[in-house]
C-alpha cells in the first residue's frame, strides 16, 4: 500500500501476491499481483462476488495455501512460507469447524493447550472467552448440542482465545438467518472493539461490509479494484465495477465538457450539464460514464429545472422508500429513489412526462 507512511503500523502487508492453482502456465490465476495493507486494529473487509479470490487471499494469510509469488508480512515479518501452526493468526471458518468430540470449553482451550500455556492460564482464558461470547451456561456441552448461532460464538471464542495478532473470518455469518445475522454483526463489532484485534472479514454481502468495516477492499476476478472506507467506496467508487457492485447505480454515457481541479463538467444525455467528481488520475476529456445513485436524484414535474427528461415507466413502493423508473428520452432507464413519509406524497403517475434533478456534487465520472 502506498497511502501509508510506513509498514510499521500495518498488521498485514500483502505485496505483489499472485496465486496460480494448477501450476503455471495454463493454471488458474485466482489472485493476480495483489497489494494491500491492513492496518493494526482495524476491521478490514474483503468484499466481492463469488469466485473473486476472497477465500484464497484469506487462506494465504492463514497459511493453508502458499503464494505463487509475492510477499505477505505480519508486522513486518515475512510469514508467506510458514505453516499455519506457526502463524500468530487465527481463523473463524465458514463451516465453524468445531471439534465434535470436544466440549465447548475444550474447543476454546485447544489453541492455548497447543501453545503449551500453563493449565491455570488456560482455565482463566477459557472463562474469560466464555463470558465474552456469553456462552458460560453451555461450557460442558458438545458442539452438536448447541444452536447455529451458539456454534458461531464458540468458533469466535476459540479463535480469539490465543490472542492472535490477526483474526480471519471467512463469511462467518452466512449460515445464520437474517435476524441472528444482524445481532452477530453488532456482536462482532463489539468483540473487535473490546479485544483490539485486527479483523479481516470476508463477505459478499455489501450491506454487511458497509455497516461493519473500517475499510473495505472490493475485489473482482483476482484483482483488488478499490480500497477505502465504506463512504469512500459508496460515494466515490473508483470504477464502474465498484459502483455497480456496491448499492444501486444509474449509469449514463456522458462527455467531458471541461475540467476544474478534481471536478469535471459533464454533458449528459439530453444536453444538460452536471458537475461531477473526477477520480485521481482519470482522463480529462472524451467519453466517460456518469454514475448517479438513485437516492441522489429527485423527480420533478416536466418543464421544471431538471437536467434529464423522460417518461415515468414504473413506480415501485417498498415501505420506507419508493422507486421511480424513468425512461429517459435520450438514454436508458433511470431509477430515482425517494424516502417516504406520510405527509410527503409525490403525485406522479405512470406514463407521465417527468424531469429528473440530480443533487449537487453527487455525480461520479467513471472510465468504462
Amino acid at each position, binding site marked *: 500500500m502506498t497511502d501509508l507512511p510506513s509498514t510499521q503500523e500495518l498488521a498485514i502487508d500483502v505485496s505483489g501476491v499472485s496465486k496460480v492453482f494448477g501450476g503455471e502456465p495454463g493454471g488458474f490465476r485466482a489472485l493476480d499481483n495483489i497489494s494491500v495493507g491492513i492496518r493494526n486494529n482495524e476491521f478490514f473487509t474483503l468484499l466481492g462476488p463469488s469466485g473473486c479470490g476472497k477465500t484464497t487471499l484469506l487462506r494465504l494469510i*492463514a*497459511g*493453508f495455501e502458499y503464494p505463487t509469488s509475492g510477499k505477505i508480512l505480519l508486522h513486518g515479518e515475512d510469514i508467506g512460507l510458514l*505453516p*499455519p*501452526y*506457526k502463524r500468530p*493468526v*487465527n*481463523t473463524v*471458518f465458514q*463451516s465453524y*469447524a*468445531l*471439534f*465434535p*468430540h470436544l466440549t465447548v470449553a475444550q474447543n476454546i482451550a*485447544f*489453541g492455548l493447550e*497447543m*501453545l503449551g500455556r500453563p493449565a491455570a492460564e488456560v482455565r482463566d482464558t477459557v472463562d474469560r472467552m466464555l463470558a465474552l461470547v456469553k456462552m458460560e451456561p453451555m461450557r460442558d456441552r458438545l458442539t452438536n448440542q448447541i444452536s447455529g448461532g451458539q456454534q458461531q460464538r464458540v468458533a469466535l471464542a*476459540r*479463535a480469539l482465545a*490465543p490472542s492472535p495478532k490477526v483474526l480471519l473470518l471467512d463469511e462467518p455469518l452466512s449460515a445464520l438467518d437474517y435476524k441472528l445475522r444482524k445481532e452477530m454483526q453488532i456482536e462482532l463489532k463489539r468483540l473487535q472493539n473490546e479485544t483490539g484485534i485486527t479483523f479481516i472479514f470476508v463477505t459478499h454481502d455489501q450491506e454487511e461490509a458497509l455497516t461493519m468495516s473500517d475499510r473495505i477492499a472490493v475485489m473482482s476476478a483476482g484483482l483488488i479494484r478499490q480500497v477505502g472506507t465504506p463512504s469512500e467506496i459508496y460515494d466515490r467508487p473508483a470504477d464502474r465495477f465498484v459502483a455497480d457492485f456496491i448499492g444501486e447505480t444509474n449509469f449514463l454515457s456522458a462527455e467531458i465538457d471541461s475540467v476544474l481541479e478534481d471536478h469535471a463538467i459533464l454533458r449528459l444525455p439530453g444536453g444538460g450539464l452536471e458537475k461531477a467528481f473526477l477520480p485521481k488520475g482519470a482522463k480529462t476529456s472524451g467519453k466517460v460514464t456518469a454514475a448517479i445513485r438513485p437516492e441522489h436524484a429527485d423527480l420533478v414535474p416536466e418543464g421544471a429545472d431538471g437536467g434529464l427528461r423522460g417518461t415515468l415507466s414504473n413506480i415501485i413502493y417498498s415501505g420506507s422508500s419508493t422507486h421511480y423508473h424513468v425512461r429517459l428520452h435520450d438514454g436508458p432507464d433511470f431509477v430515482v429513489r425517494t424516502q417516504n413519509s406520510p405527509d410527503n406524497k409525490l403525485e406522479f403517475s405512470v406514463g407521465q412526462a417527468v424531469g429528473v434533478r440530480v443533487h449537487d456534487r453527487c455525480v461520479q465520472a467513471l472510465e468504462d
Partner: protein
Amino acid sequence: MARSFDVKTQPGFALIAAFCFAALYLPIAVLVIYAFNAGESIAVWEGFSLRWFVTAMSNTAVQEAALRSVVIAVFAASIATVAATMAALATTRQGTYPGLSFKYAVLNQPLMIPEIVTAVALLIVFSRIKVWTGYTGLGYLIAAHTAFCIPFAYLPIRARLESMDSALEAAAADLYASPWQAFRRITLPLLKPGIMAGFMLAFVISLDDVVITEFVKSGGQETLPTYMLGQLRRVVTPEINAIATVFLAFSVLIVIMFFFVNRRKA
C-alpha cells in the same frame, strides 16, 4: 412414479424373498439344531444334549486350532488396521493426484485376484523362504492374512475419513497444532469408530479364511476352519456342528459389534 419402482410391490416379491431367506438360513438352522443332538448322527435326531459341545471343548486339537486362529487374527487384523489407516490417510488427505486410482487398485488387489491364485503364489514364495531361512513359525500365516485383511480394514476407515470435514484438521493446524498433534488430538479420536470397525471386519475375515491358510500353513498349524475341513474328510459327528455353532455365535457377535461401532456418530 416412484411407487411402481418399489420392488416390494412387485408380484411374487414375498415368495422370492422367503425362498432366499430359507436358502440362506435353513441349512444353518439345521446345522445348529444338530449340534444339540444326543446321538452320533448329523441327520437323525435322537434328543437334546450338550454332549458334543463338551466333547469339542475338551478336544485339545480344537482348542489349539481355535487359539491359533485367534492369535493369527489378532496379529493380522492389528497390522492390517495400522497399514489400512495409513493408506486411508494417504489416499484421502492429499487431494487427487496422478496414480491415485492405481493405488486404489493395488490396495484392493486381494479383493480382485482369485484367492486360489494368491494362495498358490504364496505357497511357492513362502516355501522358498522357508528353505532359505529355516523359519517355519506362524509368521507366514500372519503375513498372508495381513495382506488380504488390508482392503477390508481399509474400507470403513476410508469411508469415515471421507465423511470427516477436512476443515477440522485445518482448524487444528490454525490453532497451533503440529501435524502430529492434529492427528493425535483431532483426526485419530474422530477416526476411532472407523478404525475399530476396520479391525473387526479384518478380524472376522482372518478367522474365516480357509483357502490361503490351507496352502500357506506348515504341518501342525491347523486353524479352526482348516481343522474343520480336515474333520469333514473323516467320520462326521455332531462335534463339527458344535464347533461350527460356537464359531458362528462368535462371528455374529463381532459382526453385531461392527455395526454398532460403525453406526455410532463421533
